[in-house]
């Protein structure tokens, strides 16, 4: 029979689709932004594509955590259950709202506030998840299996990569605005190239983290 655990695994996998799978379009599009043979009009269209597709990984990454905790609890590997899981979902919902609002209100003071709150949520999460993983390795609590604790640690790593992307990519918007206003000059092209090139290692590290996490989830090795 179809049990709820199967459904959650499916949701978990679909979230990976919209995170890792969608990211390849974002990555490829970003290189089209700095191609000098692409006209400003083409690049403006590509920028719109990039903005749209990039929303998918943003949403999927936030939902991954509560879904992952549901699965862990279903397997009896996590003490977060019942009412505590409901709280996790509530917090994730609030985080998602804040994150989506930060994106939709970008450029306004309110958007800036949302973005700062989102940043702090991520910093706190990175710390909490890292500590939870390390404590689990040594004491078997809160996460009973080392492979799961490693996934939690890698999730923290992936969040760090996300912050790396955020800070290196922050320069892209202004640089692109200048490029559209002033046209293609050696200066505007160079300014555009900097964030696109610098973001590359962060993106590749993030993908590596996700790919390893998916292997751990499938293999569930005893470490």
């Amino acid at each position, binding site marked *: 029979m179809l049990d709820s655990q199967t459904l959650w695994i*499916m949701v978990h996998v*679909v979230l990976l689709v919209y995170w890792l799978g969608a990211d390849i379009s974002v990555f490829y599009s970003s290189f089209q932004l700095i191609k000098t043979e692409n006209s400003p009009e083409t690049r403006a269209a590509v920028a719109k594509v990039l903005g749209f597709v990039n929303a998918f990984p943003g949403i999927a990454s936030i939902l991954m955590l509560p879904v992952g905790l549901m699965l862990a609890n279903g397997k009896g590997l996590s003490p977060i259950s019942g009412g505590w899981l409901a709280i996790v979902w509530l917090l994730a919902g609030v985080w998602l709202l804040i994150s989506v609002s930060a994106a939709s209100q970008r450029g306004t003071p309110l958007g800036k506030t949302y973005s700062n709150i989102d940043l702090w949520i991520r910093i706190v999460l990175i710390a909490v998840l890292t500590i939870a993983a390390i404590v689990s390795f040594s004491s078997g609590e809160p996460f009973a299996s080392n492979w799961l604790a490693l996934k939690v640690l890698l999730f923290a790593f992936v969040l760090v990569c996300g912050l790396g992307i955020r800070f290196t990519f922050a320069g892209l918007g202004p640089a692109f605005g200048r490029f559209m206003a002033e046209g293609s000059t050696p200066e505007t092209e160079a300014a555009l190239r900097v964030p696109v090139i610098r973001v590359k290692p962060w993106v590749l590290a993030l993908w590596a983290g996700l790919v390893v996490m998916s292997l751990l989830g499938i293999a569930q090795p005893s470490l």
Partner: protein
Amino acid sequence: MEFWESLIVWVHLLLFVYWLGGDIGVFYTSFFRNNPKYDVETRTLLSRITGDIDMAPRTTMVLMVPTGFSVAAIHGYLTISSMWLIAFWIFGAVWLVLVWWLHLEKDAAKKAPWAKFDLRLRWVLMITFVALAISSFINNEPITQNFVALKLLIFAGTIGCGIGIRVAAKPYIAAFAQIKAEGSTPEREAILQASAKAARNWVKGIWVLVALAAFIGTWKPGF
């Protein structure tokens, strides 16, 4: 799971991720390519970008054949000898080379016979997989589990949708070539839009089928 089993399931999962996830970028970019507000040069470039991103789903679909059969074999769901798996992998590799060559080669005249061959190959594969699935439902050969046979049938359906896209997009390609050569007219744009819309329905068909196949693979229902 055992190491090899995990590894092949993992590759199978990542192919699914890049198939469905990569398609988001293709789908969204195509709207810009179809938009008469952009000049022809921009649309041509966007068309190339769409084609590039589309190589993610195209590549994964080809590799789904050998990985799918390998996953089935490693779980003991196949009655055929493992020599067949080697054949599937060689076939996948050769087909992949063809698919990439068709993408990278710019000489349309040189490509034409091979594009036709690729289309015929898809027909043959679709019919073969439907026959194998039906044989498995009735005789449990070559696939012993009905849910796996159903997945093969669904995969044949995705090949069918891919053929549908090629047929539906024919007026599109002709209209786009006319727009490039002689400029945009409302009639040409109308043909283009109608053709793109028909193709999009086949694309949505693929999404539903691929997601369904993933769901059945996760669920593994016995029937």
